């Protein structure tokens, strides 16, 4: 017991004796722990964030009617109950829109002749949080609003809040126009109305043409979700919108590879740098080691002493530095993705452990000190 007491006393003394130098090492360890924690946290968070970011591309999964050889109908439709099932199976950060497409004659107060246009009945089935400009496209509730694509508006010579009449066979639906922004794709020539109105117009109550699902996740998660969804609704055809799923998978893999590589490099570098700095300092301990050996310290005990010192330094540097790093990554996440990075608690112990490890490994050069003979140290040699 007194032995241990002595041990810690010497360690305490070691700290007290060279405060300035210890501060430098502590600073280096702390900073390296901060960089480690910030980068690890950011890296974990960035992948997650990236999969969400991909949702700006919109839907990535389509639930469409399955073709059957016997069906002679012109339009293939799905039952709305399938859309319900899809909605129930949605993972937390996902949305689904049901669409019913038909072609109808559209006439407005301003245009003399009716124009044929694609009418898209739309109903949002999930919370559509960040999907691109969805707020504008979705007609709200029971108001008779229809969102008219720019090209369609041009053909109809529409002004915002003009009255439109959609006509299919002898069925008519009135609505008030709202002009959508330019999308550059098929949406520009469509008129988006409430799903119910489209169903009445097409006289297909309770039917939809397809359901578009937008799910965030890694390529693997999305594949799994498609497989699970296909089992939930076996009567429909569930497939990924390959244009986006393929490209997303490709880009995700590239970017996450890049991030991992950079993070690994920086971590390795940080470790090596701290080692270089610490071993430089460790070499200065020659005199101390010589003295301890001269008064009868066993090599192992002397080494243990210095290792304990290094581990303690690593612990303190790691605890303080990693906390700072996590805070840093929260702020960095805010600058990069506009949303604060969620601190992952697992990162904290990992960074502290890494820092201690690095600190202990950096004391490795002390092993060489074990071979010094005390006499040569005192003579001022070596």
């Amino acid at each position: 017991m007194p032995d241990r007491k002595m041990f810690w006393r010497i360690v305490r003394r070691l700290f007290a004796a060279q405060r300035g130098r210890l501060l430098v090492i502590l600073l280096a360890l702390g900073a390296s722990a901060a960089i480690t924690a910030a980068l690890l946290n950011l890296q974990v968070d960035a992948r997650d964030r990236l999969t969400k970011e991909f949702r700006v591309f919109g839907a990535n999964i389509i639930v469409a009617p399955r073709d059957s050889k016997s069906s002679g109908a012109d339009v293939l439709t799905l039952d709305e109950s399938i859309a319900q099932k899809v909605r129930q199976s949605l993972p937390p950060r996902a949305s689904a829109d049901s669409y019913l497409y038909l072609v109808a004659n559209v006439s407005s107060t301003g245009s003399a002749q009716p124009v044929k246009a694609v009418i898209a009945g739309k109903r949002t089935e999930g919370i559509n949080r960040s999907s691109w400009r969805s707020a504008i496209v979705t007609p709200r509730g029971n108001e008779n609003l229809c969102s008219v694509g720019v090209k369609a508006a041009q053909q109809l010579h529409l002004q915002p809040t003009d009255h439109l009449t959609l006509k299919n066979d002898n069925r008519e639906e009135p609505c008030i126009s709202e002009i959508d922004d330019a999308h550059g794709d098929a949406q520009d020539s469509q008129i988006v109305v409430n799903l119910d109105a489209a169903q009445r117009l097409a006289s297909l109550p309770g039917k939809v043409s397809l359901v578009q699902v937008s799910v965030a996740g890694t390529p693997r998660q999305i594949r799994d979700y498609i497989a699970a969804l296909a089992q939930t609704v076996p009567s429909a055809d569930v497939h990924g919108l390959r244009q986006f799923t393929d490209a997303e998978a490709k880009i995700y893999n590239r970017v996450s590879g890049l991030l991992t590589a950079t993070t690994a490099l920086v971590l390795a570098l940080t470790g090596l740098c701290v080692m270089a700095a610490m071993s430089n300092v460790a070499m200065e301990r020659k005199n101390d080691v010589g003295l301890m050996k001269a008064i009868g310290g066993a090599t192992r005990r002397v080494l243990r002493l210095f290792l304990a010192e290094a581990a303690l330094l690593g612990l303190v540097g790691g605890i303080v530095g990693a906390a700072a790093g996590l805070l840093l990554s929260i702020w960095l996440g805010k600058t990069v993705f506009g949303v604060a990075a969620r601190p992952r608690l697992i990162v904290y112990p990992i960074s502290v452990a890494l820092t201690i490890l690095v600190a202990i490994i950096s004391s490795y050069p002390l092993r060489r000190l074990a071979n010094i003979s005390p006499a040569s140290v005192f003579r001022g040699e070596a």
Partner: protein
Amino acid sequence: MFLRLVADSFGRRPRRKLLTGAALALGMAVVTAAFSVSLDVGDRLSHEFRALGANLLITPQADSLPLEIGGVDYRPVNSGSYLPQQDLGKIKTIFWRNNIVGFAPVMEVPAEVSIASQASSVKTTLVGTWAHHSVALPDERTYATGMEQTNSWWHVDGRWFRDDAAECIVGKSFAARTGIKPGDTLHINSADRSIALTVTGILSAGGPEDDAIVAPLQIAQQLANKPGQYRRLYVSALTKPEDDFARRNPSTMNAADLERWSCSPYASSIAYQVKQVLPGVDAHVIRRVAEGEGSILTRVRTLLWLASFAALLAAALAVGASSAASVIERRSEIGLMKAIGAGSGTIGFLLAAEQLLLAFVGGGVGYALGIILARILGEKIFGVAPQPSILVFVVILALAACVTLLGSAIPLHRASRYEPAPILRGE
């Protein structure tokens, strides 16, 4: 004498100097690699983003309203206007011609397909386009492009059709519904014209094309009796993410702004230039693709710069610490020099020169290592190595010098205040 002192210092303690130099070189290598990759990532990723397909859509200016659902136009052949195919080569004459990585004209024809094995005929849409077509450019060269480039996610089981043959590929749902296999011969009727096509593959596109027949453009033109014309053109171009400046209307800009705008490869400025060379067209940026691309690219780039910055910080820290240590351990040497009459300035200058020499050597070696590292990284991740840049070299040398000088500044400052006597006494 000065040089001799410096040379002597390196000669006497090669190990220690090597250690500091190695730390420096290593740090600078990582910083070089991170910078090179960050500089390059925009280009690389915008190539990757082309997997998303076209980001520009060209349509006739005076057109009737397209009846388009999910990328297939269901208008009858006689409604709406068409564009002449012979103009297409002009796209490769615009200022940003090298940024255009592919384009494909499209024309849909409603068709009735009769299959030899079945008595009845099935209604579907025939999409006419190019698989891999040689376009004659105005300067007499040719440029090969088509759906293989623009819609790289289209997967064909079997092989693509040849653009000059009576061949086609069949969408996978349509094939499943009708039992068509590669090698079958289809008889396609549209209005009063008829044509026989050999199926060369089954297409899985994940879009409405899965329920259609895709055939060479000239087949669609024959069926529709619109020789040399097309309905829509998809253009896939390498672009710069759009910012507020990119979204401004070019017709309201002054001359200087307009020049800056058209000299940036924004999707909208490329669309504007295409519109100028092709008469009677409307060029739209496909927002869904272009804006998604832009926001992701910006994020990834910022992230990488952050990582590079972290690398820089780590390197600075290490180099600073080791140069500080190397000054501290030379206390007795400094004391001796002072005792025999060296001024603080001279000693500071001597040590700084040593550190600088170390910085340049270490920085140079680090740069070379970093370029190799960046090559390995680039080739592993993107398959293309980033170009070494002189700018990075200059920045790295400057950084190395700054970091070592800063690292040794505090101990040097302290050293200048050392009293020689206690040091020499060993206190």
